[in-house]
């Protein structure tokens, strides 16, 4: 999954040795922590599908469904 992130997204430094990956959402760039996303994707296939990603958090507690939909629109996900 980590290699897929490196391939598909811009990797940015978040400080304190942490990395994030960036993507465009409408007029803004959004950055998510790499380690947090890898933890979220634990057990999923690589690359994940939008449905698989949403199934991890069906109530959208994290509010990431919007981001997954954007990745699909941008051709990053199927």
């Amino acid at each position, binding site marked *: 999954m980590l290699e897929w992130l490196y391939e598909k997204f811009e990797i940015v430094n*978040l400080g304190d040795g942490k990395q*994030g990956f*960036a993507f465009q959402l409408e*007029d*803004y*760039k*959004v*950055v*998510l*922590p790499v380690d*947090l996303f890898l933890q979220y994707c634990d057990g999923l296939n690589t690359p994940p599908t939008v449905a698989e990603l949403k199934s991890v958090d069906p109530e*959208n*507690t*994290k*509010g*990431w469904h*919007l*981001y997954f939909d954007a990745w699909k629109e941008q051709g990053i996900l199927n």
Partner: protein
Amino acid sequence: MALITLQQMYDAWKRVADWVSGANTDKPPVRVTDGTDTMAINPDGSLPVQLTGSKLTIASFDVPRGGSSVARESGGFIDSIGAGATIVLRDVKTPVKIQYLACGMSNPNSNVRLYLYAYNSGGQLRYLPPLGVQFTANSFYNAQYIDFDAIQNNAYTEFGLWKIIQRKNSTNGSVIIELKTPLIFPYGYKMELVNTDQANSIIMRWQQVVLELGVA
């Protein structure tokens, strides 16, 4: 012919450098004020001076002037921030003066923070204060961010670089703040909105308006 040693050259340069930088307290330091064509002070307050052999170089760089520079207004709406997400509101790597910056947030939440960074000459982000700003012990620089939930109900309270101009009640609380002085960033700046809660998104309405001068 009188001979001047390298040490004498250095001593002479050092007296001037200390005067300009304010390190020498027997003279008032040189202050760069708004409207000048160039400035020769780094974002950290030091002088970009190099002494190579007998050659003294004082670097300088252009600073935007209101009359000849480009004004840009940017703003927008954000309705939520995902868990652990950072939203890059502005990222400018050219000399810029922020004449006006106002931002507002509904439902102030202690997990939402607004960061303002300055770029240095090497293109790296740093928290050092931008020029033209006086900092105090409780300044924005030391806090490094604004915690919206920490802002109290006091109207017109100053919070580092920022001045709170309005705060509604905590039930439908919203905060509107603005800069209390224009800021000059010789190498650019970056402004981010961060949700430090890694488990939950935050639903709110964010708005900002930035008036920048000198952006090419």
